[in-house]
């Protein structure tokens, strides 16, 4: 049995029409002014790839292209294909690969990523975290964050109050509390990865008493104790890296670097954990758990009209709400505690 092919000798671009046949363990190649006989073991027979020609690469740089794929398969049945090329040729395998891929991606996103972030978060050195917080203030002070307009004694009072709290085992007070003013962000408080807490003026003004502020700080301390900000940031970095890899544009990610810190969104679980932590802390210090619920209620109403009036101008006001999912549900849960 003979199969038609085109042979190139590897020294010149001239094509040689040839025929191929197998004799024992040798491949016989014959053309008008060319003939060669090579042991099959010395040939690099490429596995099939889609409906491209089958290829035989000779050790000396020669090359054979066989358009007749069926003829090739009949001539060399044991080289019909590799495991991978079999999979590539079947829609069934492709579907299986698709389902496995989707399953693995979902699994990695839901289970693997949070686990890896938790493990990694415990291994990030403290000095790096402190540096990250400084970096955060360096990028946002004077732009998004303005100096606080609160009187110094008011700030001191909140700080003192915090120092006198008794803490549950394993928890620590915030490394530092920074008061800032930000018309864009409104009434808000954040925990940064390094354990600093930012309290915005509007939040202090919104509170009817100090216990309500302490309640919010207790919630933020819950985030800090469980390193939520750091874990969320590590997760966001990995997702960003994966997306970047897939889409293939690094520049977007580099530009987004500092803002990722601000956009950190906590999951529902993280919020619930921080609420439970705050509830425990408030109760241990003789304050009613409802203080946090009251405060949440006020934040909810304080942000709502904003959202309606200037929704077009500042999307950032929406961030607080979206970063604290289901406030209603949390309030209900806290009231039940």
């Amino acid at each position, binding site marked *: 049995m003979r199969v038609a092919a*085109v042979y190139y000798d590897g020294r010149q671009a001239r094509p040689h029409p040839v025929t191929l046949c197998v004799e024992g363990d040798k491949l016989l190649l014959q053309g008008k002014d060319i003939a060669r006989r090579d042991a099959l073991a010395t040939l690099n027979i490429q596995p099939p790839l889609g409906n*491209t020609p089958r290829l035989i690469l000779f050790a000396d740089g020669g090359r054979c292209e066989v358009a007749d794929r069926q003829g090739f398969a009949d001539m060399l049945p044991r080289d019909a294909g590799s495991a991978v090329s079999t999979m*590539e040729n079947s829609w069934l395998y*492709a579907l299986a690969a698709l389902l496995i891929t989707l399953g693995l991606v979902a699994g990695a996103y839901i289970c693997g990523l949070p686990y890896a972030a938790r493990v990694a978060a415990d291994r990030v050195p403290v000095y790096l975290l402190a540096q*990250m917080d400084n970096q955060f203030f360096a990028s946002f002070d004077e732009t998004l964050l303005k100096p606080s307009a609160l009187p110094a004694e008011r700030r001191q009072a909140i700080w003192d109050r915090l120092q006198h709290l008794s803490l549950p085992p394993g928890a620590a007070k915030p490394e530092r509390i920074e008061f800032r003013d930000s018309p864009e962000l409104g009434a808000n408080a954040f925990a940064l990865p390094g354990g600093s807490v930012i309290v915005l003026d509007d939040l202090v003004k919104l509170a009817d008493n100090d216990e309500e502020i302490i309640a919010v700080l207790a919630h933020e301390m819950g985030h800090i104790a469980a390193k939520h900000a750091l874990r969320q940031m590590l997760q966001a970095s990995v997702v960003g890296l994966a997306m970047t890899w897939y889409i293939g544009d690094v520049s977007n990610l580099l530009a987004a670097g500092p803002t990722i810190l601000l956009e950190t969104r906590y999951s529902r679980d993280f919020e619930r954990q921080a609420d439970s932590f705050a509830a425990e802390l408030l109760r241990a210090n003789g304050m009613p758990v409802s203080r946090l619920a009251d405060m949440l209620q006020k934040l909810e109403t304080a942000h709502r009209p904003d959202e309606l009036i200037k929704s077009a101008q500042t999307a950032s006001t929406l961030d607080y709400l979206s970063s604290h999912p289901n406030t209603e549900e949390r309030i209900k849960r806290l009231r039940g505690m």
Partner: protein
Amino acid sequence: MVEQQRRQLQFSGSGGEYFRIWIVNVCLSIVTLGIYSAWAKVRRNQYFYRHTTLAGAGFDYHGEPKAILKGRIIAFLMFAAYSLVGRFDPLAGFVILALIMLLMPWLLVRSLRFRLHNTSYRGLRFAFHGHSSQAYINFLLWPLLSALTLGLLVPLAQQRMARYTRDNSAYGSAFFKFSAGVWAYYNIYLMTVLLGILIFVALMAVTVLLGSSGLIPVEADQLRAMSLLIAAVGTYLALFLIAYPYVAARLQNLLWNSTSLGAHGFSSYVKGREMVGIMLGNVLLIVLSLGLYKPFADIRLARYRIQHIELLANGSIDEFVAGLQSQASAAGDEMADMFDFDIAL
């Protein structure tokens, strides 16, 4: 004088066929924690190269997966070092970035060498013979200068890069020659800037007209600010969506129309308008399909770009002979890929 023969490049890949290869590649890469991705890259390149044919013969890719894997690991470590360290400590990140920048021209030369050495047509390999010292001028000095001049020298830098890569590329023992001047590059970008100005002025005129005729309820003193804003945002969007495909189309045409190989020339006639349609459609469908349209998009773009290139053969193309084989390592290729400095040839 031998008569000139036009021979169009053909691309025979199909979306459905490539989808299966792609999804198997993705799946195996994930299952093997990324190790298979080197083999996947070889399969992908082989698929595109072998489906690209000229005068009845296909191109081929010979990259060695193990070499690519080694390059991938080095590239991944560098990239991870930069992005993670940079997040925690911007200064250290900056130092790493500067080091990577210093290495980049050298890496790019190795990448070009690897890619061309592993590309063949009719059993003859391509090759890249450029020196690193010139790479530092063309891949580092000019881009740096164009950054310092706020982009004024970008077209010049691009022309220098194209000239360096093409003039040092060979097929067998025949060298490519690149003839486009700097002005041709400036021309493309000037047209883009002009287009932007036209869109801006048109948008501005329309909003002012609508505003002053009372169709848009706005107070007189706010009209100018508002129309400026609308025109600026509209121009930005239009350029963002149109300029990239348009520039890509014009650059491809310029590159190939100015390239020759021995006695043979090339011709490319991609249309900016059609490129805009294909690229916008692809992005839209990729988003709507949550990424699953990607392989179809790759095929669609490749087919359009490849089938609009012709070899203008002056005489027989059978006469090319093998040249000196160059040594090539995969490390540079991978790193260049990863940092998206891919130089298309």
